[in-house]
């Protein structure tokens, strides 16, 4: 009988673990948000994090956007030329970038670059008792470490998304005009014709959520870290994987709500 029930026990444990993790994540976010009201914002840390997530990520985001736009343009051409609607390539690239790929790719690249670094930095602080030291010095570690990161990610993600989408559209333009040799005016004109303001702003709204997700999960996993340097590695990996999954999951949910 026990053997028969053990798989169910496993499933139950797994589900409880997921719920537990999600629950503590939400409690953590709530605590962090509360500490915004409890203390004033630490602007020095916020600026440091904004530089780290924003300007320092510019090349990564730019290259991602550029090549994505170029590939989109090429691929759309392949399909569009069959029906002779090559004038739709511009809107295809622009809408894909602003609505979907811009926010998601930016979020994934920032996760890889900054989320991992947040998790490992806080994780290292945890295992070397620096977090305890903060608490002993009566400094709320959420206020000191999480809030600047969450706020910075929230602010910089949309900004980097704008750049990613713009560079992507420029990349698509380069391929459209110079590689495929099509009329470059059509590309721009049709984008303006078919794009709506809501396409841009819903994409940016997504990016804000992605920013919250990245910073929350990464810092949370950092605070959870136990088990020395090996633990830091393990929790950093968890942070990146979990952030990526939650981003894609949230992307679906937000898309179904927003569009």
């Amino acid at each position, binding site marked *: 009988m026990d053997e028969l029930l053990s798989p169910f026990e496993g499933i139950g444990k797994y589900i409880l673990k997921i719920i537990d993790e999600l629950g503590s994540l939400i409690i953590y976010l709530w605590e962090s948000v509360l500490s915004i009201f*409890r203390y004033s914002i630490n602007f020095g840390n916020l600026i440091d994090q904004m530089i780290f997530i924003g300007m320092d990520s510019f090349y990564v985001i730019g290259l991602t956007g550029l090549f994505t736009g170029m590939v989109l343009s090429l691929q759309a051409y392949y399909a569009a030329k069959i029906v002779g609607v090559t004038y739709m390539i511009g809107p295809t690239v622009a809408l894909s970038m602003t609505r979907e790929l811009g926010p998601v790719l930016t979020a994934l690249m920032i996760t890889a670059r900054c989320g991992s670094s947040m998790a490992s*930095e806080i994780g*290292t*602080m945890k295992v*070397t*008792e*620096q977090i*305890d*030291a903060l*608490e*002993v*010095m*009566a*400094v*709320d570690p959420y206020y000191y470490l999480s809030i600047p990161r969450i706020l910075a990610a929230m602010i910089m993600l949309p900004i980097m998304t704008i750049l990613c989408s713009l560079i992507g559209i420029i990349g698509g333009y380069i391929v459209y005009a110079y590689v495929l040799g099509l009329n470059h005016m059509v590309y721009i004109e049709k984008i303006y014709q078919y794009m709506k303001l809501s396409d841009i702003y819903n994409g940016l709204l997504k990016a804000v959520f992605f920013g919250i997700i990245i910073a929350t999960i990464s810092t949370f996993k950092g605070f959870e870290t136990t088990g020395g340097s090996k633990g830091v590695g393990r929790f950093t990996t968890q942070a990146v994987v979990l952030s990526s999954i939650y981003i894609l999951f949230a992307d679906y949910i937000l898309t179904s709500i927003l569009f």
Partner: protein
Amino acid sequence: MIVLERLTKSFNGIKVLNNLNIRFDDQKITVVIGRSGGGKSVMLKHIIGLIRPDSGRVLINGININTLKKKELNEIRKKFGMVFQDGALFDSINIFENIAFPVRQHTKLKESEIKDRVYSILSDVGLSGQELKMPAEISGGMRKRVGVARALILNPEIVLFDEPTTGLDPIMSDAINNLIISMHNKFKFTGIIISHNIEGAYKTGDVIAMLYDGSIIEIGSPAEIKSSKNPVVNQFVTGSMNGPINFNMI
């Protein structure tokens, strides 16, 4: 005055603290000795509210800190300074900023005043001229001294030392012990040192307490501990392999 009452704590079903009672008198240095992993650090973390007990109370000047809210607890914590085993210095900022950190967080002093304070305490701990180095660039002994400086910068009532001499050579250990004594003479804080270095305990402690099997089994002046009849204390003090302390018990 700090009082721990019937403190009990277990991790994963193993009782680390078992009905522990102790009182730490004001302006005295109490050294808690005991085996590695014997629950000394856990006791220390209870005192500062990093860990909450399963049962029992932690009273600081008569206030039970386990029932406090986060903000009230932080007010209590401002009375404390703590020196961590490995220093726990923030490795993203330099020595100066590490020492200035509590000042910046809790006071609104001007930059010049902060500078004066940090330089004064740096010279007290014998680290003048090292303030621009990063924590990764200095030796273990120096890290401990920076830790002491950071703990003392706000002139706290109570200072906790988590194994201040562990991992140092005998000369450096002695230097740290002397530093603790001189700082105590200067600032008159209530000191709680946990250590397994018996020689250091004799030197620094006004009172020595022995933590064994989750509770305090003996407390008294260094002379009393030295001449204790308790076989466990005796074995620990003499550092003998033979006695009631079993090696399998960790």
